């Protein structure tokens, strides 16, 4: 019988996928959210983690920016 799992499909580029996988691995086992790694540009994760992932990406992006001190 077909098995259905509810969650979130993440589509992104390869570096971003690696970033999310890495973020997942650094969390304690109870908080890990990746259910399946589908291929190198798609992940299937728990629902409700959208905001957490977006803020982590945002933080990562800010760390990569340099603003000249005024």
């Amino acid at each position, binding site marked *: 019988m077909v098995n259905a799992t509810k969650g*979130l499909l993440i589509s992104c580029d390869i570096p971003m996928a690696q970033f*999310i996988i890495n973020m997942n691995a650094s969390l304690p086992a109870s908080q890990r959210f990746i259910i399946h790694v589908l*291929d190198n540009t798609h992940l299937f994760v728990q629902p409700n983690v959208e905001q957490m992932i977006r803020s982590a990406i945002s933080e990562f992006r800010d760390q990569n920016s340099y603003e000249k001190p005024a």
Partner: protein
Amino acid sequence: GVLPREPMHSSITVRLPTLEELDAYALEQWECFLLQLISSSQVERQTNFSSSMMTIFQRGLLSQRDKEALRLTVHGFQFLLMDTNAQLWYIIREYILNSEDRGVDTADLISFLLELSFHVSGEAYNINTLNEIQRIVIKDLADLGLLKLQQGRKESWFIPTKLVTNLSVTLSDSSSRKQGFVVVETNFRTYAYSSSKLHCEILRLFSRVEYQLPNLIVGAITKESLYNAFENGITADQIISFLQQNAHPRVAEKLPSVPENVTDQIRLWEADLNRVEMVSSNFYDEFPSRDVFESACDYARENGGHLWEDSKRMRLVVKAEIHMQMREYLRRQK
């Protein structure tokens, strides 16, 4: 048809503004109105519009959260970047829609405005040819810069400006294009030859204004200034078309009028904010046979819910919206 009123006879000795003076007047009135609209602290004098009228114009463009000051909404930001004719039409539309509440018949108002757009810009028309309602309306129109009111010794006149005669001109008519003022260089610096406070405010929406000289605003387009704009709901396309439509005549002739590396980079920075897409969905596996798997994929595709599949391992991801239908369909397959 013939206009119900004739322009003032040239024998009457009252000094009319030249076309340049009229254009400057119209621009000043319109900018003052816009500055007041966005509650800018830069506005030097208030227009004569009542605060309730201003509130109606501001609806949709500005919003207020509790005790905070009024803030521009997404529509507000986009409104500021539209060209003058589009902005004018938006305001006029709100003015017309609201006219019933003020006791002015909508049909009369629309026909009066259309009538005005066929007058000759720069010619003076006697106010005694207007009925009572129209006399009230022209005061509002003068505040917007559509007309200039002039007092003679015995009589009063109104002079239509280019803004009102452009009401009946299509948006694609290039003769109604005002002169551009922005030069964007390949090093992302912007030079805006303008002394207008409104232009300065608009540039601050997406660029970092560095110096304000009497006739020049110098700034730079940076990642931070653009992220600020994107957070406020402005799109890269809107910024780019604003820069292109307002390109200074010196660079407007060149193709492209805005350097390609700048427009590309603006789009790249916007894309950088959207690297990840997340969709609520359901994951299906453990299909009993390849046939069931393939028909499930087809069913998902037909209903617009197919997101991803792995044919080798027979796994399928489908949009959450059609989960119930999929479940029913799979039950029927047994």
